[in-house]
């Protein structure tokens, strides 16, 4: 059974529909890239998948072995205040928080999970550093490690490389690809970087005036894909 199915889904705010009639299936191990122009509703779609925003029509169906609280999320530009006092470890550990109020404390296993994920993201040496003093790339790794604490199965990433320089961007893409290939974590990533999408993703969902959903290979050959790629190149 599919990990995640969007059936006849329309998303938006209040009664304003932004994206209409999506039918998408995501299988375990997929790397899906969501493309589309600014304001086309990519973040809104992601929030709908996470139940942060209710769907207007249709439904988001989670596979049988995927629980609601087993999805890791990297929000678009977390607007953390400039002077928020928090150490890297505190933030990563907060990925282990349980939805239930009856589990108020972190277990040793949680702390172990946090440490392992910091190593995975190569930030173990920053554990006691202040988050606010880190570089943009380091901050994204911290938030990625936090998201990994929440999931072993599905990561939703909203523009993880926004504002990073090319070198750091590539490092982050490599890390994400490794999570997908080696740890078999399903990735759904929003991106404006069509080059990276075509390079790393297995599937593409393009939203906007023309909706495309299918494999990367089909996308490259499609009208939408051609149009978007040539425009991007110029």
């Amino acid at each position, binding site marked *: 059974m599919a990990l995640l199915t969007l059936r006849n889904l329309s998303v938006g705010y209040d009664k304003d529909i932004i994206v209409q009639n999506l039918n998408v299936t995501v299988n375990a191990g997929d790397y899906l890239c969501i493309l589309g122009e600014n304001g086309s509703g990519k973040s809104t779609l992601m929030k709908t998948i996470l139940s*942060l925003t209710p769907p207007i029509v249709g439904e988001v169906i989670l596979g049988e072995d995927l629980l609601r609280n087993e999805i890791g999320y990297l929000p678009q530009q977390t607007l953390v205040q400039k002077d928020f006092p928090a150490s890297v470890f505190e933030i990563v550990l*907060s990925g282990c*928080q349980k939805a239930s109020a009856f589990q*108020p404390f972190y277990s040793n296993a949680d702390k172990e999970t946090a440490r392992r994920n910091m190593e995975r993201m190569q930030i173990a040496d920053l554990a006691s550093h*202040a988050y606010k*003093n880190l570089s943009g790339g380091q901050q994204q790794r911290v938030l990625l490690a936090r998201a990994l604490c929440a999931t072993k199965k599905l990561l939703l990433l909203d523009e993880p490389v926004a504002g990073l320089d090319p070198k750091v961007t590539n490092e982050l893409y490599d890390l994400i690809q490794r999570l997908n290939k080696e740890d078999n974590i399903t990735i759904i990533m929003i991106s404006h970087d069509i080059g990276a999408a075509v390079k790393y993703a297995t599937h593409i969902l393009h939203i906007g005036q023309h909706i495309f959903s299918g494999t990367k290979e089909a996308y490259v050959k499609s009208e939408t894909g051609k149009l978007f790629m040539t425009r991007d190149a110029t």
Partner: protein
Amino acid sequence: MIETLQVYFQYPFVRYAFIVGILISLCSALFGVTLVLKRFSFIGDGLSHVAFGAIAIASVLNLTNQMLLVLPLTIVSAVLLLRTGQNTKIKGDAAIAMISVATMAFGYLIMNVFSTSSNLSGDVCTTLFGSTSILTLTRNDVFLCVVLSVAVVALFILFYNKLFAITFDETFSKAIGVNTDRYNLFIAIVIAVIIVLAMKLVGSLLISALVVFPALCAMRLFKSFKAVTLFAAAISVVCAIAGLLISILAGTPVGSTIVMMDVFAFSVCYVFDVIFSRL
């Protein structure tokens, strides 16, 4: 000086004042960090005005136990303020300003019209700036304060991790299924309780100082949430004790003396921070 203090400490009301002062400054500092970081401190300020109005009503009605009226009224207002603040950000601010001035004006008005007290301006001044002396705490006050403070501290420890997570990134918490609205409600209610408690100590106009200064002091010096929380609690208690001692020895008003100690602590932390970041 030590002898003078020994004499003072023989009086139960002096000991009461210290118990109450330490507990209140502890509670307000613990939640102050969350309040400042969540940008909820304006709610604290608005609530202190509501509490003033509620006290005015209680004293006009000649209630023997004012808390029974003041506490529920302030909690209800906290919940309402949080709702309006969340729905529409800008209007929320305006709503709080409106409620603040309305309750203050109403409070003063009814105190003026209906009060049977011979010393009206004294009463008003006490409610606004805290008692001039610390003789006014009764055994019941102290008992209530101890019970509520212990509850507040226990809840803080129990929900410390959730408070951090929600303060740092509410969206993320919500995404992994945490009922963040419920925790915001919880925060608002606890703030209301703290404000009502702190009215006794420093009066309604000065409460915000107890909430805001310790957090700002700690944020100057420490970079992790845990360290900030612990230091804020410690500095707040130290300031309260120092303020109480000075006010006993020098006969100054309790509330303003404690607040001045907080201001002083902040300046010290500020200077410390500037010097250390230069090094």
